[in-house]
């Protein structure tokens, strides 16, 4: 019994260490995203943020979501953003991510918001862990996604198709107009 308790404590402290490492890299990456001067460096530290986010998801027993996070965000979205930056920025890259005057309002506002949420989270009584998330989340996710949530699933599919078609039209149309004018 005592050995079991020791095992559980060990696991808890390992989880805690993993959490703080992941949270540290997540917040460092996020701060670098909003503070770095070069926009390309910002996008690259965004990749760090997304990988740490996937680690947090694994820590929370959401392995399918972690895989989706790496595939969609770190793979797709970041490459798309790098392409966007390269297409849009033609001048000097070094000062491509400037800060406007409003950060004087934004910094205290967001600091106050963080303190407020932190206070509420620290003061509220959390119930103990209700149960374990089952292993192999994808086997449990599939019937829920395709039976209970099939209408939102199809709606999201239609949204994705329409939006990406719209993206193609948007980029193409402006290109033609830009040439003619």
């Amino acid at each position, binding site marked *: 019994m005592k050995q079991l308790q020791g095992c559980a*404590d060990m696991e*808890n*402290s390992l989880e805690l260490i993993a*959490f703080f490492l992941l*949270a540290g890299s997540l*917040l460092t990456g*996020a701060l670098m*995203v*909003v503070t770095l001067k070069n*926009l390309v460096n910002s996008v690259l530290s*965004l990749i760090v*943020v997304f990988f740490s*986010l996937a680690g*947090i998801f694994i*820590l*929370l*027993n*959401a392995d399918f*979501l972690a895989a*989706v996070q790496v595939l969609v965000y770190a793979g797709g979205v970041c490459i*798309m*953003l790098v392409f*966007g930056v390269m297409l*849009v920025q033609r001048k000097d890259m070094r000062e491509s*991510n*400037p*800060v*406007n005057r*409003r*950060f004087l*309002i*934004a*910094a205290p506002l*967001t600091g106050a*918001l*963080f303190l407020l*949420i*932190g206070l509420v*989270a620290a003061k*509220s009584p*959390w119930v103990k*862990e*209700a*149960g*374990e*998330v*089952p292993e192999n*989340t994808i086997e*449990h996710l599939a019937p829920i*996604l395709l039976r209970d949530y099939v209408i*939102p699933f199809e709606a*999201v599919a239609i*949204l*994705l198709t329409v939006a990406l078609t*719209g*993206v193609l039209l*948007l*980029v193409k149309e*402006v290109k033609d107009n*830009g040439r003619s004018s």
Partner: protein
Amino acid sequence: MAGALNPSYFVVLSAALFTIGIYGALSKKNAIAVLISIELMLGAVNINLVAFNKYFTPEAFSGQIFAIFVITVAAVEVGLGLALIIALCRRRNTTALDDLDWLKW
């Protein structure tokens, strides 16, 4: 059980990420930087959804399902936003949000 992780850790982490995202969205001049900050905010929301899924309804999976929808809509949003920014850059030759004021009168 002092050492165990509880939901407040994840709530505080996601609050930190969310406020960093709000700060970026409010204080950046470049439209792509604002788009990136919005992505940070959506990631913070996903942390909350998955953490509450684990600690409160581990069998129902509703948090993870909603996180999947959030990821999908975020991908759509990035694609559409980038297309708008590229179109804007071709027409007006700027990506600074303060220059987009020709609806003002």
